[in-house]
């Protein structure tokens, strides 16, 4: 390959690491760290105080704690999945971590999240958005697992897992948008609704853009 092409490729990788992966890793770990107080089972936390009526329900309480535990596990395990170095040199790490992610999302994270969407904060459309997100998170993870384990179609597996991870990252992007709009002085409920919609559809859009650019060469071969 031409040296300039190699240099450009390296520069692109470096920029991706600096402006995408480092913030994502930092915010993921911050999110996991912020979930830790909930495992003390204290009820004086603002999130729980606001949902005292729901907290009285044992099913909701069970779903809440399992959901945040599952979320912390899947966010942490997903950090390893997109490293090309791990995929090439330590494939077993990728496989084990991927199985943990899939199992946690399909068996715990998505079902408990789906139940809680019925009582989510916001109006009808915000709840609908949460439901859509939970269903799409489940479906994309399901497809990502099936394409790798059964069909051995690793390109499709990669694209479905990008979509799944985009849905998992809504937990982070939602908070980022929420803080930004708060600093802009928006009303709480408007801020909440807009942050939710932007985080879900924005992440889905970004995922599709990344998939498009990664499959461009493959699509060109199909056209040719």
């Amino acid at each position, binding site marked *: 390959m031409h040296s300039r092409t190699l240099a450009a490729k390296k520069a692109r990788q470096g920029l991706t690491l600096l402006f995408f992966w480092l913030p994502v890793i930092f915010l993921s770990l911050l999110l996991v760290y912020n979930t830790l107080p909930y495992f003390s089972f204290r009820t004086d936390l603002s999130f729980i105080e606001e949902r005292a*009526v729901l907290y*009285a329900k044992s*099913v909701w309480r069970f779903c809440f704690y399992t959901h945040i535990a599952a979320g912390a596990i899947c966010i942490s395990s997903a950090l390893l999945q997109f490293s090309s170095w791990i995929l090439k040199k330590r494939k077993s790490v990728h496989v084990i971590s991927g199985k943990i992610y899939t199992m946690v999302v*399909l068996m715990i994270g998505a*079902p408990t999240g*789906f*139940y809680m969407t*019925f009582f989510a*904060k916001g109006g009808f459309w915000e709840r609908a958005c949460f439901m859509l997100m939970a269903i799409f998170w489940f479906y994309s993870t399901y497809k990502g697992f099936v394409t790798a384990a059964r069909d051995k179609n690793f390109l499709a597996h990669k694209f479905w897992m990008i979509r799944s991870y985009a849905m998992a990252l809504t937990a982070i992007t939602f908070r980022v948008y929420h803080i930004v709009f708060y600093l802009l002085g928006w009303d709480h409920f408007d801020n909440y609704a807009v942050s939710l919609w932007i985080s879900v559809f924005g992440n889905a859009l970004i995922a599709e853009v990344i998939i498009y650019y990664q499959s461009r060469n493959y699509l060109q071969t199909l056209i040719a």
Partner: protein
Amino acid sequence: MKYFLITSTFLMIAAGIYGAFDLSMDIRNGTLIQYDNESETQAAEFFSGKNPSVSKSNTIHVAQKVEKKKEKPALVNSFFNLEISDFSRAMPPMDYNALLLDNLAQPDSLKNEDVAAAINDTLTAISENKSARATDSLAPAKEERRFKFALYSRGKPRTVSRTAVDTIHSSTQK
């Protein structure tokens, strides 16, 4: 793999069905969560008398929050209502009974029923003691003093029994 996928799909469907059922029950009972934080007391009124377990917990929660909010201004007000006499070195009551009652009758103590009962007992004991002293002659007091002297004297350790001492004492008096 097949069982895993079937189980996960079943869980997802079950979560959806149960969530929809639970939501419909909440709507029917009027216990659907209201996220409007500004009208907490109104929310408590709304929830009361519907689903007993949920409404009870919600009412307790709201009451606790309202109490917490009230506590802060009360503390601030008590600070501003302090007077210079609160810090003065005024002489406490010198009478033993008055001092005892003064100590027992603190605001914290009065809240406790046991302490209140103890105060009543003390008061009755004091009044009984006073009336007994008023009616009796001086002889029992003297008797008391004599026994105390015998018990706590720094003389030789007593080797004879109390009854023997009493008989000796009574014979010498005779």
